[in-house]
């Protein structure tokens, strides 16, 4: 399964980057979101994947023993997911402002706008 996920993540990276390289403002945002997801998934995969053994200590036990999913990458990714939401929101609003105020929908027009100033 790991190999399929690795290929999938590569595919997500390619899609995200391809969209970021487009001229359209909206495609840039879509690309950013896909790329953010890809990074989270990559971290998760590299931490090692385990089926059916969540890192929660059983009722009767006092410590995690045997096979269990690695809790550390999960903790890292959890905050990463939330923060990337915040940053994506910020990026989206920023680009929206650029569109409303400058009428930029084509990213290549940003250059002309800069030069006019």
């Amino acid at each position, binding site marked *: 399964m790991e190999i399929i996920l690795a290929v999938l993540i590569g595919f997500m990276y390619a899609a995200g980057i391809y969209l970021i390289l487009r001229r359209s403002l909206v495609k840039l945002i879509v690309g950013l979101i896909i790329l953010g997801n890809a990074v989270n998934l990559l971290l998760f995969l590299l931490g090692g994947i385990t089926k059916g053994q*969540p890192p*929660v200590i059983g009722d009767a036990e006092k410590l995690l023993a045997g096979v269990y999913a690695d809790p550390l990458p999960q903790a890292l990714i*959890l*905050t990463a997911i*939330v923060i990337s*939401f*915040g940053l994506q*929101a910020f990026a989206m*609003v920023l680009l929206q402002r650029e569109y409303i105020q400058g009428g930029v929908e084509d990213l290549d027009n940003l250059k002309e706008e800069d030069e006019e100033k």
Partner: protein
Amino acid sequence: MTTLILRTAAVYLMPLLLLFSVFILLRGHYLPGGGFVGGLIASIALVVYGYANGINQIKMFLRFHPGALIPTGVTLSLLSGTLPLFYSRPFMTGLWLEGTYPIIGQVGTALIFDIGVYFVVVGTALTIIFSIAEDNERD
């Protein structure tokens, strides 16, 4: 866009979801859940309600701007970290009360910290979404 069904459902869903989010927050130390997830569920509850009944309703319900939750949450978390300093322990040392409760387990500074996280997440998510929604409503 807002149908009667959604509006009616939202009225009942919102308190249920809010309650659920608190439940998720409190049980976080023992079972999957915690401040982040709890906060996000609470946000969704309020967003759904706002979507159905308009943002003014939410504002009336909350009685304060959701942005105020952000500094409250950060301060709460920070305080829970500084509390051990008064007992001459290092910053962020866990302190615990005696006795175990169902669902929550032992009550300690970690719980206060998690509640702070909960507030920050709710505050941020609502601030972002409501700002944009208000901006849309304006014109």
